[in-house]
């Protein structure tokens, strides 16, 4: 029983190490958190964390800008990550690890990790 427990712990540790390594070994896409409303209205999209949170809470899209591209960021469960992104709006540089794809002309990132850089 005791040996089995040790084996189980070792197995879990090995698997989690691999997953953590996988997440960190992927190169994050770097950019800024911006308000899509602001961009639509001709602005540069830059908003503070508080403004972004307020916008996200009232259903306005908070998005991720990398270079000239605007990405709509989604969580792995398929929900829009605007509210989560809003927390990083004050950061100059934000990195997102995940998968990028284009759906009906819209650039999407399915994010596994968001971090300030």
């Amino acid at each position, binding site marked *: 029983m005791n*040996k089995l427990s040790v*084996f189980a712990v*070792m*197995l879990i540790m*090995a*698997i989690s190490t*691999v*997953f953590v390594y*996988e997440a960190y070994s*992927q*190169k*994050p*896409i770097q950019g800024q958190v911006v308000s*899509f*409303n602001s*961009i*639509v*209205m001709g602005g540069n999209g830059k908003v503070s964390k508080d403004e972004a949170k307020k916008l*996200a*809470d*009232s*259903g*306005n*899209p908070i998005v991720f800008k*990398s270079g*000239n*591209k*605007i990405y*709509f960021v*989604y969580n792995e469960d*398929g*929900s*829009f990550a*605007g*509210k989560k992104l809003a927390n990083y709006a004050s950061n100059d540089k934000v990195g*997102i*690890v*995940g*998968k*990028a*794809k*284009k*759906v*009906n*002309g*819209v*650039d*999407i*990132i*399915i994010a596994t990790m968001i971090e300030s850089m």
Partner: protein
Amino acid sequence: MKLKMLLSLLIIAGMVFVVSCGSEEKQPELETLDSVDELIEELDEAETHTDTITAAPDTSVAVSDATSDKDETVAPQTESVSTPAKPGDYTQKPLEGTIVSLNHLIMGGNGKVSKAEAQDLVAKGNLILFRASDGAVYFVYNEDGTFAGKRLAGYANNSKVGMLGKSKVINGMNVFIMNMIESM
């Protein structure tokens, strides 16, 4: 005793190997060609394709089918070529289409949601969009600059919806500044 320990380590090593192999990016498979003529035809098509890319503006995109165009690990290096969207004036004649959920489109669905579902999605901060009859997807805004997802959700049960306003293309995405929305 030692054998059991060795076996355990062997299993762990095996699992680590399997997980690591699973993350490797797949190389695209090469297409097989039946004849030299087919190869020449493909090369001709490729040349025409390159010309189109050069002529198209950087913000080209939109108007495509309901399925995803590409799927890749961050960061994307290549740009898929699709029909460039054009700004349009719909102040007299409405732009017709349906209300869709971006979440559903991303998950591979057709985007169709009921009014109740759409309102629930909006309440949770998700995006509700408009898909025109030609397949183009629009981010709809009110004239005051606020996102109109909440307003659109109210029309999700309608099989056809018309919007008056003006469309524009921003960073390759279609945006519609709406004056009026009605079921048709």
